[in-house]
């Protein structure tokens, strides 16, 4: 079952070089510059990579290496200076602004580090936001969100406001919000940065349980070396270039 709609474009990955037809994300020649006063800083230097569905892909690297910039581009919220990104076959930066917004709404789930829950609506409504944005009735959307909150073991907190929840519970609500509309791509920036080692591992286990699926890709940005062993695949970024791509961390890290 999938609510993720192909935004028109049929699966066609032959257009850009060497894209596997089953790739969830196919990024080619990604360059990103930032203007900083008079000077232009190149943060990403032409990145080519594929992200496969059914895997948990980690993007790791030192602070400032460009991890956040890269996933922002891969999930359609930051325009690359050069290059092309296909998400499930759709060349997302050739879409119009509103098409891209709708593409994100239907295909991508976000987990923000600061959760960014809406303080005055309860946990179930917060988790239901993507469904409500898609136009579903509030009550129906809340019911669907509650099922997911149950699965995340906070079903009994569904009627509480975010301020009445612990940090960990809030994060679960944020995870539920990222998954409630069954997106085909889930992106997550530093999910464990604020947590101790045990909680961090528990969150990653949870994410693996609920977020990873056969037809869904999951990208996690982190520099938390305590959880590197939970990855299916690790991309290491150094100064805007991919220096390692494998199932485990390279020896020298």
């Amino acid at each position, binding site marked *: 079952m999938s609510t993720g709609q192909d935004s028109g474009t049929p699966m066609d990955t032959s257009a850009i070089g060497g894209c596997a037809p089953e790739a969830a994300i196919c990024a080619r020649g990604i360059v990103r510059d930032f203007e900083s006063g008079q000077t232009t800083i190149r943060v990403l230097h032409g990145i080519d990579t594929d992200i496969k569905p059914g895997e948990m892909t980690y993007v790791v690297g030192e602070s400032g290496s460009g991890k956040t910039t890269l996933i*922002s581009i891969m999930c359609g*919220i930051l325009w690359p200076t050069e290059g092309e990104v296909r998400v499930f076959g759709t060349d997302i930066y050739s879409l119009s602004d*509103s098409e891209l917004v*709708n593409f994100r709404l239907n295909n991508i789930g*976000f987990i*923000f580090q600061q959760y960014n829950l*809406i*303080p*005055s609506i309860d946990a179930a409504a917060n988790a239901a*936001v993507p469904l409500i944005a898609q136009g579903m009735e509030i009550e129906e959307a809340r019911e669907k969100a509650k099922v997911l909150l149950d699965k995340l073991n906070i079903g009994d907190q569904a009627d509480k406001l975010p301020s009445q929840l612990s940090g960990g519970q809030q994060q679960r609500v944020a995870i539920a919000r990222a998954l409630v509309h069954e997106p085909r791509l889930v992106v997550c920036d530093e999910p464990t940065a604020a947590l101790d080692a045990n909680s961090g591992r528990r969150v990653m286990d949870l994410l693996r349980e609920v977020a990873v699926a056969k037809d869904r890709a999951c990208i996690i940005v982190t520099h938390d070396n305590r959880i590197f062993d939970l990855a299916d695949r690790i991309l290491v970024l150094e100064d805007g270039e991919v220096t390692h791509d494998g199932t485990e961390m390279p020896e020298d890290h």
Partner: protein
Amino acid sequence: MLWIAIRMLTGDAQKFYGLLFGIAFSTLLITQQLTIFVNLIERGASGVYNAPEAEIWVMDPVSRTTDVNYAMPSTALDEVRSVPGVEWAVPHLRAAASVRTGSGDLEGVAIIGVDDATLIGLPERLVEGDKKILAQPDTVIIDDGGVVNLFENGEDPIGQRLELNDQRAVIRGVADSIPSFTSQVTLYTKYSQALNFVPGTRNRLTFVLAGVSEGLTADEVAARIEEQTGLKAETREEFADAGVNFIIENTGIPTNFGITVVLGFVVGVAIVGLTFSLFIRDNIKQFGALKAIGVTNAKIVRMVGAQAALVGTVGYALGVIGTVAFIYAFSGNPFFKGFYIPWQIPLISLVSVIIILAITGFIALRSVLSTEPAAVFR
């Protein structure tokens, strides 16, 4: 999403009430001040409204209002009566006088002499006494506002003796009348009696009040009177407007009220603008998240629009209810006698509220719309 927008706003009680207060305050100030202004300047026409039978007011060409007047020779009455289309015409005297009350206070009053035979020129209704009582010698009828001014300790005015320019007068009735702009005490008496009260100059006929024959309009007949007599003749409406315009042109009232109304608007913009911007800033991360998740700018505009509409509707209603409550609470006070809220005024304050929200909403929106969705990962 509108439901979420409304909950975002009402969930932040402090700012929600701040916004409501700002709008309600502006509405109240604008509506209330405009209401007082309009009612106050309409007092410039109270002399006209208090003589409801008169369809045409005839006067010396230099006279401007019921109170700013110059007397005519008494022959003017017959001249007016001889104009075709004048159904009836009666003399009307208005003059100032000084009155000494029983307790020895001195007060300036307006004397109004009404036609002996028809009593035309008297307000429609008396609060106390009967119009016929004017037939008794020395009788005056006082206006209800004047009772409060002249008898501050709540004495019954009926039967009170006054010394009017050295003449004896007895109050034998109280008229239900619209107060004058200056809230001056007004004493109604017969025309012949008024001539006794007012020291003798040759010309004391200040106005001739006239009625119009069937089939003719007041405008037509007034024009004929002017043509035939060389006097000034104004219809009831024209003369009422003249009284209002005189107040507008010769007092600082429009400026004073204008300043307050503008202040109400500016304070509204300031309070609402500041609170709205604070609210948006507090929620900018949430708006950013919504944008990243997939809410279009058009929907964000509608969300902020719904928030503004809610604040506007409730705040405006509170402001108008506040004004009505204010007028109602003071309806017993003679100064506020007859106060009403012309329908144009709530409309003006509604437009003001819409402008306030449009300005402040636009400013607040700009920051939301310019927020990069990518900012949520920072």
